[in-house]
């Protein structure tokens, strides 16, 4: 029995270790852009510092965006974005964490529309979201793409009445990223 137990234990440990080295991919060459179509001025910013990991075995994912990494054309706008709206010292990251729903095949070329169902946290406020995304597979390489809108009020980002005409209540977010196998 002792031998038996040892064997079971070994198998469990082994399966656990291999589970750790599953089909995990890191995001690479990320580009997150948001755009707000204001009455007076359009606001646009881009971040290339999004980090993320996708586990295709468990169909789980986690994305993390340092809020301060968003670059604006206007330095003052960028300062106000961090200081007054997103309060990025207090809430440094935006995160999206959840599960992938839908079918795809990473070994076959094609574009697969999937749903990312999870919790989107911005400005310290978490909202359950279902975001439609596309996984493109071509010649063994995969990338993903997604476009969705965020209501500023959903994340308790306050816009004072003096500038309410300058800033739209909804912003459109576009995400693009390559997927690179995570070897560990």
């Amino acid at each position, binding site marked *: *029995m*002792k031998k038996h*137990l040892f064997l*079971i*234990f070994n198998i*469990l440990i082994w399966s656990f270790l291999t589970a750790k080295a599953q089909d*995990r991919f*890191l995001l690479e060459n990320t580009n997150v852009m948001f755009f707000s179509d204001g009455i007076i001025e359009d606001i646009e910013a881009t971040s290339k*510092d999004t*980090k*993320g*990991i996708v*586990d295709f075995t*468990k169909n*789980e*994912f*986690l994305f*993390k965006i340092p809020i*301060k990494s968003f*670059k*604006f*054309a*206007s*330095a*003052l*706008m960028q*300062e*106000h974005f*961090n*200081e*007054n709206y997103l*309060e990025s*010292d*207090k809430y440094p990251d935006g995160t999206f*964490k959840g599960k992938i729903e839908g079918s795809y095949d990473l070994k076959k070329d094609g574009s697969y529309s999937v749903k990312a169902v999870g919790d989107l946290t911005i400005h310290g406020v978490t909202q359950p979201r279902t975001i439609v995304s596309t996984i493109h597979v071509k010649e063994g390489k995969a990338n993903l793409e997604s476009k969705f809108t965020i209501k500023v009020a959903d994340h308790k980002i306050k816009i*004072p009445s*003096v*500038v309410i005409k*300058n800033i739209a209540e909804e912003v459109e977010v576009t995400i693009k990223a390559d997927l690179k196998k*995570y070897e*560990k």
Partner: protein
Amino acid sequence: MKTNKPFLLIFKLLLLLSFPVFAQDDLEDALNESEKGKEKKKEYTTAAFKSTRLINLHNTERLAKGALEYRICHRFGKLNSGAYQLWGLDQAEIRFGFEYGLSDWIHLGVGRSSYQKTYDAFVKAAILKQSNFMPLSVSYMGSVAVNTIKDASPDFNGKLAYVNQIIIGSKLNERISLVLVPTFVHRNLVADANNKSVSNIALGFGGRLKMTKRLTFNAEYILRVPPQTKSTAFDNYKDAFSMGIDIETGGHVFQLTFSNSRGMFDKAYLVETTGSWGAGDIHFGFNLIRNFTVGGKKK
């Protein structure tokens, strides 16, 4: 054999229980691990102050590259001048100026003041910028002022005054930022000193307290170092103490100020302050600042 069964069961249960715990923070851990070994990104501290001046004194903020700023400043008469002068509001001094961020390190400005009909120009350059690796910002500020009052001086040289400053500042936290400004002022011709040139050393210091996202309280003091020999050019004047609030509304900043100085360019508030807080010689004033972005898109 039988004795082993409960043990095995417990073992299995434990494993089963530990699995979901692992699964939860699994991705987070893996992501953090993948970031390990990568160099930490340098992040400059931003928004130590709402404007590039504390009140009169330059602080460590500079305009960003491509930012153009229009400033219009007023200083009124003494609050203790009574109802006849509407507590000073009848007598306004004005300075207006344009400033520009040549790069993220160099900030230029020019201005014209009604006080002594003076044109002034300055350059402020960052030497060190506060970041997650560096607790301080250090900048250099140099300015020249030209007094264009008729007969102020027999030659052009006598109309000039220079200021050199090292600005040391730190944003201690979200609310509090401090500056310390060792200053050297040189005036080519000073009436109080028998029309000779005078050099002074002063130490400016002050800070801001951020009260809400858009409102800060500021105060500054200019400590003039007494010269070795007695001089009316020093003794007839006072140290300037100013306090005020900054109100930020998007592209504008309004600075409302109270000061015993009416000067709005460097030399004037540093070494030519005549009012005394104790006697009620307090001047209300404001700086209105409008920021535009004229430079190209930032990559």
